[in-house]
């Protein structure tokens, strides 16, 4: 289209000089420490794991741990660990040469984490001789697990929000969801090591649900801090 071609060929307009307010800011310009994504990710991971470890030290490991299949314990534990680190990585570390983190992938990771852990919990769960039997009396404890998981998720979400405060012009909701999903997965890992209920509904909805609830809460609240205004 010729009209569009004509418009495209117009030379760029002459911009006005920087505003007086900006000039005043420039007059007192000082060096500033810029964001270091990998360092932030390492710090976020280490502090979150230390916090989770401190919580775990106050609790007991699940009493049926010796009766459960070792491979299941290790594989599920690793899955929770990957569910913790992968979304945090995508939420904090941009592609090489870019400033904004991979918010689209972070969003996808948070959804996969939430749906995946709920689904896996419902489908893949061992029955143990001393594991509590599935019935309605575990609903109350189920909420306890949810609260415990969310409390564990709090630290990674808060630290991530602090690291990314005012940094995201786009995709802040998805990045926040990924922080929540990562934190929720850490909570899920804690529950995997502590809670001895092996009922699929409990493991899926309460342990896996921590990831979804945490992602939703973070997506609702964290962009207030991380969105660039």
């Amino acid at each position, binding site marked *: *289209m*010729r*009209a*569009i*071609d*004509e*418009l*495209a*060929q*117009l*030379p*760029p*307009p*002459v*911009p*006005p000089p*920087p*505003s007086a*307010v*900006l000039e005043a*800011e*420039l*007059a007192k*310009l*000082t*060096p*500033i*420490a*810029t*964001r*270091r*994504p990998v360092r932030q990710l390492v710090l976020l991971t280490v502090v979150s794991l230390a916090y989770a470890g401190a919580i775990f030290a106050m609790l007991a490991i699940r009493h049926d741990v010796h009766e459960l299949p070792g491979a299941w314990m290790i594989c599920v534990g690793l899955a929770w660990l990957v569910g913790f680190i992968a979304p945090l990585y995508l939420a904090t570390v*941009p592609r*090489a*040469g*870019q*400033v*904004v983190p991979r*918010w*689209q992938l972070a969003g996808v990771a948070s959804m996969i984490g939430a749906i995946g852990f709920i689904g896996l919990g419902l489908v893949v769960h061992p029955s143990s001789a001393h594991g509590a039997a599935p019935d309605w009396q575990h609903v109350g404890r189920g909420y306890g697990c949810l609260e415990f998981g969310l409390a564990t998720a709090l630290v990674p979400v808060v630290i991530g929000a602090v690291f*990314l405060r*005012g*940094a*995201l*012009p*786009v*995709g802040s909701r998805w990045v926040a969801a990924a922080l929540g999903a990562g934190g929720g997965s850490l909570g899920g890992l804690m529950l995997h090591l502590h809670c001895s209920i092996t009922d699929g509904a409990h493991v899926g909805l309460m342990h896996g649900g921590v990831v979804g609830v945490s992602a939703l809460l973070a997506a609702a609240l964290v962009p207030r801090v991380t969105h*660039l*205004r």
Partner: protein
Amino acid sequence: MADAKDLMQRYCDGDAGAFRELYALVAPRLLGYLLKMARERALADDLLQQTFMKVHRARAAYVRGADPLPWIYSIAHRTFIDEARKHKRAVVRVGDVEELPEVPAGLTGESADRRDDGRADPELVTAALDALADLPHQQREAVVLTKLDGKSVAEAAAIAGTTTGAMKVRAHRGYEALRKVLGRTGEPAKKSTGGAR
């Protein structure tokens, strides 16, 4: 002239001169984008200043070694969207009370004395701007970024905060809508210089 990456790093190191160089490098392109989106020179100027103020306040979020241009464009994009929302709300309020007359937007977004290109056909440019203004803002943005500013679909998607698939669809729909409108407003299809670029 140094590249944007180097200038941004020196700016973050406290070099105000680097900021001025960065401004000189980026502001014309950014203003061109904002003008095509907002269509009013005064508004585009204001959005440009707001964008650079935000860049200044958020410079700690910059990652060394990264190209700052997509990030700055994203900030400009958000600034425009926020302003458009405010403007929309203001228009609704005015419409409700019917106190003020409707004021048409400027045609080209810049005064005639500021336009320094004598080769462009003003009629065609005006027709293109009019047609652009009638597009939904997402399609307008897609056309401006991909067809007029020469960004790749991926770059445009990153700036607008959407997926490449959605950006492709928006650009295609926007371009098709423009083709229809510009066809009706007298731009001869025979004179076409090649269509989509």
